[in-house]
């Protein structure tokens, strides 16, 4: 790594001030240190934000639950009440990395993490996402890449938690300078849809403070599933999160999001809106799966993601009535 200064912020304002123009926030460090070891990130100062007050608790609420940005993925995985109320979040957390990673990985960091595209992550390749001129994956090795994108970069979002939180209609609270933003997950990743150099909509200096999840009563059900090559400690080839308010097998409202297929947690609002009032069965699940993937544009090596994701969507939906 290039050498840097280090400071431990005690307040949000000083975190921002300390980071300045060329610094970076240090929470869990999995993503940041990984980038820095390849010299893909060279901040002049690392501002440790783990001591910031009020960012490391899980607060239940009758209206919404609050999870601080510094809560670790392991804490989410192990939190009994949180897991019971939001099984989709629990399952997504379980599948993040390894136990060692989950023990330090922060919720904020998981949401903000950078692309895992192997061209982006390669120290000697200047791809489009790094302000180069070419997306190497398009005509190259694209087996892990997107089926949908709005820009020349085809690297997909890989944060498991983003997919689950999208299904839960969570709000992400971010401090941008003196402003406090309240974004949906869609807002958080919107810039990545259009902009090849963007991983998400965050700007330098932005600090994720917490996530607020609307409370769900017993009429809500949720599930998260992913397909990986290895049985554990492997990135998803495709992932799916669903949350639905149900009356028996009848859907009142549903949200379905897909991960690892687009730069953003992917959904088709017309399709999920159309699920309302219908009975969830194998037929509907198949229909929804087909429709969600209708606009998929496979590349030379990732066409397999279409049948894979189709099967995945169906299975995840049918979990709700299992």
């Amino acid at each position: 790594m290039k050498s840097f200064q280090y400071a431990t912020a005690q307040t949000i304002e000083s975190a921002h001030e300390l980071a300045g123009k060329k610094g970076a926030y240090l929470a869990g460090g999995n993503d940041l240190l990984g980038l820095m070891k390849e010299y893909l990130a060279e901040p002049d100062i690392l501002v440790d934000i783990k001591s910031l007050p009020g960012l490391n608790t899980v607060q239940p609420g009758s209206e919404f639950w609050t999870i601080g940005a510094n809560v670790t993925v392991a804490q989410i995985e192990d939190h009994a009440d949180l897991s019971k109320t939001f099984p989709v979040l629990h399952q997504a957390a379980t599948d993040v990395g390894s136990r060692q990673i989950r023990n330090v990985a922060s919720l904020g960091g998981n949401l903000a993490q950078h692309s895992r595209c192997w061209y982006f992550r390669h120290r000697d390749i200047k791809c489009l996402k790094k302000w180069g001129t070419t997306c190497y994956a398009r005509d190259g090795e694209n087996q892990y890449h997107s089926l949908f994108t709005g820009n020349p970069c085809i690297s997909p979002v890989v944060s498991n938690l983003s997919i689950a939180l999208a299904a839960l209609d969570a709000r992400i609270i971010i401090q941008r300078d003196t402003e406090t933003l309240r974004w949906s997950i869609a807002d958080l990743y919107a810039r990545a849809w259009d902009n090849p150099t963007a991983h998400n909509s965050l700007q330098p200096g932005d600090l994720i403070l917490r996530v607020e999840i609307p409370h769900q009563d017993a009429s809500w059900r949720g599930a998260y599933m992913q397909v990986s090559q290895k049985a554990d400690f492997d990135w998803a080839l495709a992932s799916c999160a669903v949350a639905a308010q149900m009356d028996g097998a009848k859907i009142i409202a549903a949200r379905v999001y897909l991960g690892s297929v687009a730069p953003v947690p992917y959904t088709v609002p017309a399709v999920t809106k159309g699920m309302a009032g219908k009975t969830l069965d194998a037929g509907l699940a198949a229909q929804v799966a087909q429709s969600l993937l209708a606009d998929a544009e496979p590349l030379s090596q990732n066409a397999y993601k279409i049948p894979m994701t189709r099967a995945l969507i169906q299975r995840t939906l049918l979990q709700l009535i299992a």
Partner: protein
Amino acid sequence: MNKPTPDAGAGHVTRRDFLKSLGTTAVATAATQAQTIAEQLERTRAEKILGPGPVPISLRVNGREFHLEVEPRVTLLDVLRNNLSITGPKEVCDRGTCGACTVWMEGQPVYACMKLAIEAQNHSITTVEGLSLEGKLNKVQEAFLEEDALMCGYCTPGFIMSATALLKFNPHPTAQEIRHACAGNICRCGTHPRIIKAVLKASGATVTSNLDVIPYASLA
């Protein structure tokens, strides 16, 4: 909260600026002023910018206190192995993908290669050496030996850290839970089946240790 003024330099609140901002508030008692000054100074001290050159740090490893000077960019793994000669944790990938460097921070398994030494301060650190300080092996180490859950042994310290932590948290895990807890540890020699067996044994479960060696001559 007070926002440092632009000309104060990154993160450093001058006493002058601080006192200036104090003056704009409503009348405060001397005691409150003193208390807030103390808090502010404490915060300033805690937010001190360190590095990029070597910085004095203290680490508490296996119950011992170490004082050394390292740059902020030095990882905990680097310090353990190269400054403190604690070589149980191994460097295999340096990217948080293989678990050979697994140590405990406050009893939780973490990848030492992905932790800066400077941020590991004020957290108790345990390496595999710390599990048998008085020369007595813990249950997991004993079981690894008995079930031959190791070959070259390079991944072994990391697995033992993950497995021992698991048993503290979940004293009677299933094989599936053992797999999930140790998924972050890689072995190339292929000792996994015996690791699962060893951890089950260490948890008190009965394991069958069968070695099927059949004399070829007995096969008619």
